[in-house]
């Protein structure tokens, strides 16, 4: 195996460059090294000015998403050897404004999180004495959608979000479904407004790339489709039984 690999890294320093440029670095090619280890090598040994986000380096904090050879990836869980002999191209996540080098602005996503009211909504005032009972099967109903680490690879993969930043987007909708499908929650009606607004689920044309990109098998595409089905049947019911008909 070759002993080093070339990393082509996107650079953007807003006070120096009008638009991003690529810069190449040679880093050692080691069996255990993730893309992130390569970036850390650059920062520690070659060029301290490179900026990017990372923290847990175990695929759980969701900070290190970048575009690697054109694909959205968690760089701490993607390995250099898979790109040998190289070069491997590392760019910021697509579909987000670039703040600096490999750092993107995710303010838009953070705002969308609150919009879907991702917390348990109960109609009863009293808090219970103990736990709400929930069987393993009921847990299973929403478990998958609770695994999202907010890495935003799905937003980066979704062309519809790229075209329309107002689109609520895959992870936010999956998060809404996570609560809608939780047996302890009674708030799906409250979340309906945001989800079926013009920027909600109906914008999604089921490209499906969000689920392909997701490193945690959350399947946001499935969440969205399932929600469309629920919302559509609800609407149909309200048409057929105008006065709520309950």
């Amino acid at each position, binding site marked *: 195996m070759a002993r080093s690999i070339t990393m082509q890294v996107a650079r953007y320093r807003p006070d120096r460059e009008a638009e991003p440029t690529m810069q190449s670095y040679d880093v050692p090619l080691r069996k255990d090294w993730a893309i992130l280890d390569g970036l850390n090598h650059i920062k520690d040994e070659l060029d301290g000015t490179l*900026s990017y986000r990372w923290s847990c380096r*175990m695929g759980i904090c969701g900070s290190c998403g970048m575009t690697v050879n054109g694909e959205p990836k968690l760089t701490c869980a993607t390995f250099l050897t898979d790109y040998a002999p190289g070069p491997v191209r590392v760019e910021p996540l697509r579909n987000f404004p670039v703040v600096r080098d490999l750092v993107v602005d995710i303010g838009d996503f953070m705002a969308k999180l609150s919009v879907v009211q991702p917390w348990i909504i109960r109609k009863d005032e009293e808090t219970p004495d103990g*736990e709400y009972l929930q069987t393993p099967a009921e847990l299973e109903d929403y478990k998958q959608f609770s695994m999202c*680490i907010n890495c935003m690879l799905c937003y980066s993969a979704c062309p519809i979000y790229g075209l329309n930043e107002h689109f609520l987007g895959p992870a936010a909708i999956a998060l809404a479904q996570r609560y809608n499908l939780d047996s302890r929650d009674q708030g799906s009606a409250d979340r309906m407004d945001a989800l079926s607004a013009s920027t909600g689920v109906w914008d999604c044309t089921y490209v499906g790339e969000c689920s392909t990109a997701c490193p945690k098998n959350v399947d946001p595409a499935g969440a969205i489709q399932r929600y469309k089905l629920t919302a559509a049947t609800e609407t149909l019911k309200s048409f057929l039984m105008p006065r709520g008909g309950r």
Partner: protein
Amino acid sequence: MTYTHDIVIVGGGGAGLRAAIAVVEANPQLSVAIISKVYPMRSHTVSAEGGAAAVIRAEDSLDEHAYDTISGGDWLCDQDAVEAFVDEAPKEMLRLENWGCPWSREPDGRVAVRPFGGMKRIRTWFAADKTGFHLLHTLFQTSLKYEEIARYDEWFVTKLLVEDGRVRGVVAIELSSGRIETITAKAVILCTGGCGRVFPFTTNANIKTGDGMALAYRAGAPLKDMEFVQYHPTGLPFTGILITEAARAEGGWLLNKDGYRYLQDYDLGTPQPGPVLRSMELGPRDRLSQAFVKEMEKGRTIDTPYGQVVHLDLRHLGAKLINTKLPMVRELCLDYEKIDPVKDLVPVRPVVHYMMGGVSTDIHGATPLDGLYAAGEVACVSINGANRLGSNSLPELLVFGARAGRAAAEFAAAQPDDGGDWSGILTQAEDERRRLERDLRGREGGGERVSTIRTEMQAAMEQGAGIYRSADSMAKCADALQELRERLPGVSIDDHTTTFNTELIAALELGLMLDVAESIVHSARLREESRGAHQRTDFPERDDVRYLAHSLIHRSADGSPRVEYPPVTITRWPPGVRVYGR
């Protein structure tokens, strides 16, 4: 520009978020803000795997949880704090359940519990093996409900502003713009987490640089029991990624190079096929990590490119159990070691994991400095004593996060609105701003890299203040740290961009880490006994006559450390012998 809040919380991890919610619930009139150097859901709490302990089963009792905690902590825990902790832990955990945390369940719908190291009863709640992840996301999402909670995401706090023995606010840099701002407050709660990054091989994330400990120390608040650094017995070589204790609680075995369950040689019980509480692989972390070192000295560990390891054997648990109870362990092994625990042995070695010590607080989270509170890993209440039991830290950050929030709310509400004379504070803030700008603009290239000094510091700490310590090793370490401190001003910052300047942040973190490292080594040198995680080859016995006491380290005016020894609070459990496996 200056921002003003009643309460500023530094840190958006489990402790910080819980504190913020507690403040709003205690007093919705107060303006509260969370300042965090990463988006809250990226905080390190996200990595916690195994679970969170709280008494819930009929056959369990608060006293037993308290006793396990106290004996696990080698009697260095304050027992009034432990009693408050075990009492409130179940309530906090239930709240979290009510907020939607996806706890694993029994078939009848009740929350499930699993065994954990050092615990006599089965009382550890878990959400598969992503407990911290679910806990943090549940707290964060619930916090979004409270519009009152303002957030400064990706702001780095560089200084606590203190005047007349009272904390009045902080100075912080906004990463995205490089703006340096003063944020004033009537009370500040530090929830900045631990400092594992002071060591080279750690389970801790990149952000765990002990900032809060150093900020408090510099501001005049003492640190407590800093010599107690927990090594977790099972980290993956190279990355330091943690293989949770739950893997052993579910029945995993530790094997040496001969395939022998070596823990039986270290007074930890006799091997049984299934897991036995407080025995063998379910002994406490300090003892297991020490056993590893002894095995290594006997030449019975396995040599790898990333150092000596032993094997964790999960194969007999079967794919089904591993997939349902330990999915992340499998995922991590497959990703980072290219091995499958269903079929292969997992190489593991002890790894720096947790700080028992921290900013000294009372049982309400208050530090001796007026208006300054602390909770979570950054704080030392102390319930963890000389060795924390696995799964006690998540409930700790809930219980004491909430307590600190309530106490700070009460304190802030009692303060007058304008707070008197601000000129001194603003001058301090101005000085701090100048210091930072000088760092950013003035430090030309050519000097040493941040990483050079950091790497040397980490190596010195591992050699001098690792699992086993001695007067000699620590003296060398202290000298090395002193030398590094002198080199620190010469470190170069090549990056002069104001936007997202991570090199500047790394340099600031390095300065903070050096303070923390010094306080660890200094406290360790003075404690001439072996207790819990602090093991000295030159003083191998516990010494309750001299050291049934906390080390409280202050920074004197000239910067030198000064240590005091206030006694441990004993209520109902007089010091005894730690017995495991018998």
